[in-house]
């Protein structure tokens, strides 16, 4: 009896992961893609996306939910890359230069975002989402109107023919896959971008270490209870801002890594989907709004992108239309986000109710709580 209960708890806690596992398990054979092709694509996508997903961890730890405002960091990274291409700095140095240019921008934007979110406690996610839209307008203003007119641009190849503004697509040939190719290792007929993996590994170690520092502990305390943290002398507002600043900076680096792999950049659209993919990945990986771990990131990236690889082909095989497969995967990704958010909110409410019942009778087994931590 006990064992069965545990099994059901496990399924209930990881229902989003289970659904995605079943879905991809069905779709993969139907797609008819070779194992080699799928594995290679997955490896590439782990290198490309995981850094971006990691940027969500710290705000979750600090109890601020999923940081939809991470697209601000992505924009900072894009501005960095624009300058790297403009100044014609190539290879890994170009990437380093982009990060250097993006860093102050990301810190300022992160600070502003943190301050805004502090004014919207309890609805950080919706606010962060709108903040991303808002800054998209500002980004468009800066890149389309100020660059080349107020901000000097040297290269004619990247500016629009009217003399100012950056072209719709930016060719990143000079830095294309420079990080991936730095230490490309061939094993079992697959290419492993070891250079990128090392950077992701360093980030993992950093996060493990950071959790143990004073600041990391403060963040976790705030994530548990803001009032208690405030009473015990933790500067709640400032720590929350720092969490968002760090998240924005990580997203900036993540976007640079993402775009060097892609090889070209849709100047005005590249960041629009960033938040959606990162959030979908971490939730598909089994994270919730209040709890996320490093394995969640990797499981999520693998599962989500496996679905993105196989679904169009599976749709083409099943319905004779790849379009259906594409709508299908979008519907499931949006659905996964909605489901994860609903489950979390529902558990939180149930937890509160059980707490109340516990106050009245003092007989409730704490293990029966909804699983929200």
């Amino acid at each position, binding site marked *: 009896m006990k064992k069965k209960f545990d099994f059901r708890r496990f399924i209930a806690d990881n229902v989003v992961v289970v659904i995605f596992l079943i879905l991809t398990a069905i779709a993969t054979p139907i797609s008819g893609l070779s194992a080699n092709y799928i594995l290679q694509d997955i490896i590439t996508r782990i290198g490309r996306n995981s850094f971006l997903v990691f940027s969500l961890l710290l705000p979750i730890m600090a109890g601020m*939910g999923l940081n939809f405002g991470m697209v601000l960091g992505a924009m900072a990274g894009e501005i960095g890359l624009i300058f790297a291409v403009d100044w014609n700095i190539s290879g890994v140095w170009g990437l380093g230069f982009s990060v250097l240019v993006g860093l102050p921008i990301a810190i300022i934007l992160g600070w502003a975002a943190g301050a*805004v979110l502090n*004014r*919207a406690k*309890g*609805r950080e*996610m*919706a*606010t962060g*989402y*709108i*903040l991303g*839209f*808002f800054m*998209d*307008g*500002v980004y*468009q*203003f800066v890149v*389309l*109107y100020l660059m080349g007119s107020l901000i000097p641009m040297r290269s004619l190849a990247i500016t629009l023919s009217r003399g100012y503004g950056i072209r719709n697509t930016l060719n990143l040939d000079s830095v294309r896959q420079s990080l991936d190719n730095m230490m490309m290792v061939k094993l079992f007929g697959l290419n492993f971008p070891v250079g990128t993996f090392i950077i992701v590994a360093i980030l993992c170690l950093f996060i493990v270490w950071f959790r143990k520092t004073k600041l990391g502990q403060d963040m976790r305390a705030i994530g548990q209870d803001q009032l208690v943290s405030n009473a015990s002398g933790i500067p709640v507002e400032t720590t929350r801002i720092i969490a968002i600043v760090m998240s924005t900076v990580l997203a900036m680096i993540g976007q640079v890594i993402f775009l060097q792999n892609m090889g070209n950049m849709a100047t005005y659209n590249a960041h629009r989907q960033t938040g959606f993919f990162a959030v979908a990945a971490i939730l598909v990986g089994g994270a919730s709004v209040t709890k996320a771990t490093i394995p969640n990131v990797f499981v999520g990236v693998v599962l989500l992108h496996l679905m993105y690889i196989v679904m169009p082909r599976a749709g083409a095989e099943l*319905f004779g*239309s790849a*379009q*259906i497969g594409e*709508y*299908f995967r*979008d*519907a499931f990704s*949006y*659905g996964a*986000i*909605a489901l994860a*958010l*609903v489950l*979390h*909110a*529902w558990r939180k*409410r149930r937890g509160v109710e059980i707490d109340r019942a516990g106050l009245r009778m003092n007989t409730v087994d704490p293990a029966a709580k909804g699983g929200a931590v």
Partner: protein
Amino acid sequence: MLKIKEFAADFGWPRIIIFFFLITLFIVAPFVGVSISMSLSDTLNRFGQNAILVLALVPMVQAGCGLNFGLPVGIIAGLLGATIAMQIGLTGWFGFFGAVAICLPIAAVFGWLYGQLLNKVKGEEMTIAMYVGFSLVTFFSILWLLLPYSSPAMVWGYTGKGLRTTITLDNFWGHILNNFLAVRIGENFVFPTGMILFALFCAFLVYLFFRTKTGTAMTAVGSNPDFARAGGVSSDKMRTISVMLSTMLGAVGILVYQQSFGFIQMYQAPLFMAFPAVAALLIGGASVNKASMINVIVGTFLFQGILTMTPSVINSVLQTDMSEVIRIVLSNGMILYALTRKTKVTK
């Protein structure tokens, strides 16, 4: 002076700035060669197009469910109504009101389910509503391809199945409300009487609804759930009704929008339709938990006025197309302002 300051703080500086911005646009317009009568006509037209979609947000705001970013749920019901009416070959007035009659029960069912969901997630409605809307729109994108529609006016010509991305309403009920009793003054100005009347009629119905017992109870649930519960009002029931009402209005709203626009936009088009409506309501002076008919009318007029005026005026002044940036910054800035405003205790 103090009174003016108090009024400004109450109304909010962003709204005052937007208001004066619009007036400036109208004053500048003739000097840069933009026809006032045409702009005014466009503004009125877009006002009628969007007013009911904005109105659809009011019940949920009043019932304390926050801004309904899940408006696409209602829009999908409206699309179903329109396409089914076209499939069975209804045209003209029968077509339009047939579509309304078909979409209302669908919207009621959708709204009921959606309301049940939102009742389980109190306090986090907004983000969840957003993603419920997104997933429903993408899910229905699959259905638009698979459902057995066969009317040649709607499906792709070469395969004979799957709905087109935009379906023209020319031979069905395009502009039917716009042209009803329309008054033409001068060369460029047309007053779309039928549509404006229909929008005002809907607003009046909602206004009346909030005067009834159920409507008052709904407002009570929104302002103070505990107090309402003590008074014997079921908060869950009121919230469900508000969500159903919101979804049904959204469905009617998109039908009015389509007949004026002349096309039905399918697939991914409804994804982001909630955001401009939300921005308009907030510009009109509503907050996250309080909205009135005045907010709807003033907000839609201001917002649509700016959307109409900025491209023509700003382009003539600056010789560049900056309207897109202004639209994004303005509408999202307004939502951001409302979300971050410390909610005051009601007087």
